[in-house]
């Protein structure tokens, strides 16, 4: 961000004589404005997609009346929320009740500062990026507790207590898994985590110097090839990095209070948990923060595991992946009618295509490089980052409508008796591998 504004500052002539700090502050405000509006629109669109996904899974149509295929439904919902009466319960602690939604939202909004959105562009390049995100993510708990207490309703209080206990507990396996990944990345800087990945799969400046099974050994052009998606951290030490990915994804579901871990909002027991008493605009702030949090967690996972803004395949791979996918899809099509099987077949084919692309030793990685326009990299990076993160968000929605809710004791057992020991073992194994292959 700072580099970007510095660049503009040096380019634009009419800014000359103005101290740098003024365009910097204005630029920061503009960016904050863009992000806050992005969150609002993102949450709105997410509600529409979620309802459509749910309808699809339950063999319904879903929202259909507002706009073609109900595509403007989220705008109607937002307008309704804006115009609704803002009620405050009579016995509530008025100050805390009014403050709580903003603290929850500020906590999840602050995390966006450190996200590496595109090459050479994140809102702020923090040296302690991931630590900062974990720290501010944990401050959401306080807002939730505040809301639950101030509502002076037992449902809200129960929901808040459950939510806080859940988030605090699941921070343990999350932290351990992130620690394991930090052993590999060797940096807390979110931007550097991605920027240090070289095209051939090695890491410059980090801890890891090579894959345990170097792919370039198979490639026809070993000097100058791009590993594609195999340079991502998730493929660094299989199967341990896969396990880490699954652990952190489960934890992300629990920390954002999503089904199957939506016990704080379990409508069959608690009406709707800590935001039972909220309505109108204040309720929508909780809503925004939930979706913003989902995106932040997906973005962290994207950065640590799925290579952030890096494209998943080189140019050969991008041609072979859809081709192989379609061929396998056609082969399977006659034999099964289950769309899930067809989807799996397509994905397997695409994977084979990507692998073949890697083996071909193609050095072209970015379409921007292929076309020879460097500035396109920014847009391409943005595209890949948001595609990956959004894919993870959609997966969360998919899980929500597929898996039933856990009980409180099952949730705690899963965290403390299964995920935490697993995360410890995983950390140990990754540490040893890192020590061996350093």
């Amino acid at each position, binding site marked *: 961000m700072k580099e970007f504004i510095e660049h503009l500052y040096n380019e634009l002539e009419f800014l000359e004589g103005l*101290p740098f*700090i*003024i365009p910097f*502050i204005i630029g920061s405000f503009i960016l904050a404005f863009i992000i806050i509006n992005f969150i609002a629109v993102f949450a709105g669109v997410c509600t529409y997609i979620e309802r459509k996904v749910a309808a699809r899974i339950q063999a319904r149509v879903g929202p259909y009346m507002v706009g073609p295929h109900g595509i403007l439904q989220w705008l109607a919902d937002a307008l309704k929320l804006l115009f609704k009466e803002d009620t405050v319960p009579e016995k509530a*602690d008025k*100050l*805390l009740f009014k403050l709580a939604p903003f*603290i929850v939202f500020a906590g999840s909004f602050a995390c966006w500062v450190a996200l590496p959105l595109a090459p050479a562009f994140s809102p702020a390049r*923090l*040296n*302690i990026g991931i*630590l*900062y995100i*974990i*720290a*501010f993510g*944990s*401050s959401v*708990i*306080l807002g939730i*507790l*505040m809301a639950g*207490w101030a509502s002076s309703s037992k449902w809200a*209080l129960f929901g808040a*207590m459950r939510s*806080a206990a859940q988030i*605090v507990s699941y*921070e343990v396996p999350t932290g351990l898994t992130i620690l394991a990944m930090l052993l590999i990345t060797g940096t*807390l800087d979110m931007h550097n985590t991605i920027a240090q990945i070289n095209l051939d799969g090695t890491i410059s400046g980090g801890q890891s110097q090579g894959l345990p099974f170097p792919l370039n050994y198979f490639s026809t052009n070993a000097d100058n090839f791009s590993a594609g998606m195999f340079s991502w951290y998730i493929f660094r030490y299989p199967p341990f990095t896969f396990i880490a990915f699954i652990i952190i994804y489960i934890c992300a579901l629990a920390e954002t209070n999503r089904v199957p871990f939506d016990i704080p909002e379990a409508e069959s027991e608690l009406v709707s948990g800590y935001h039972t008493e909220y309505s109108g605009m204040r309720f929508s702030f909780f809503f925004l923060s939930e979706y913003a949090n989902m995106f932040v967690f997906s973005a962290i996972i994207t950065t640590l595991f799925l290579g952030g803004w890096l494209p998943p395949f080189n140019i050969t791979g991008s041609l072979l992946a859809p081709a192989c996918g379609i061929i396998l899809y056609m082969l399977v099509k006659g034999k099964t009618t289950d769309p899930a099987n067809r989807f799996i077949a397509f994905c397997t084919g695409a994977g084979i295509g990507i692998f073949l692309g890697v083996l071909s030793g193609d050095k072209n990685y970015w379409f921007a490089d292929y076309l020879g326009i460097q500035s396109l990299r920014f847009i391409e990076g943005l595209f890949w980052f948001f595609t990956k993160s959004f894919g993870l968000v959609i997966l969360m929605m998919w899980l929500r409508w597929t898996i039933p809710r856990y009980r409180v004791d099952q949730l705690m057992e899963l965290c403390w008796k299964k995920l935490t020991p697993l995360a410890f073992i995983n950390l140990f194994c990754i540490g040893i591998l890192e020590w061996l292959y350093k």
Partner: protein
Amino acid sequence: MSLNEILLNIIFYALALTGLFSSFMVATSTNMVRTAFSLLGVLFSFAGLYGLLRADFLFAAQILVYVGGILVLIIFAIMLTHKIANVNLSNESTSSSTVIAVVCILFAVLVFIALTLPEYIKINQRNKPLTEMIGNNLLSDSLLPFEILSVLLLACLIGAVYLARKEVKE
């Protein structure tokens, strides 16, 4: 004074005032829950001051440990207490004049220290990231104290679990 310094000063005073106001609320509020939530303001403003001094690791650790951990535990403890919102003070033996005297003495000591410091800490002087230095130091020069501390914390944890656990009687 350049614009940068003016801005830093504004941020500093805003943070300091927030911290002062919240700590005043912590001390004077009779509602225990509000007291706990006022502590949030104190902790955040201190984290902000660390950030202003470019102590990035301290900044994150302050929020992570105090806001995300200790404050949540305090609030849990408060919420698990019976009828905490309107508590009857049973112990009022300490006279307010003693308290005021102690506070005045402490304040005088603080002012003395602040005035006799050889020079004010200059903000913006150091650009080297702290986290790396702290990490290297913890695992090289001060490894032994670090390990002793972690063993001590582990012992505390086991002790707490032992105290809290209910023995199942046959």
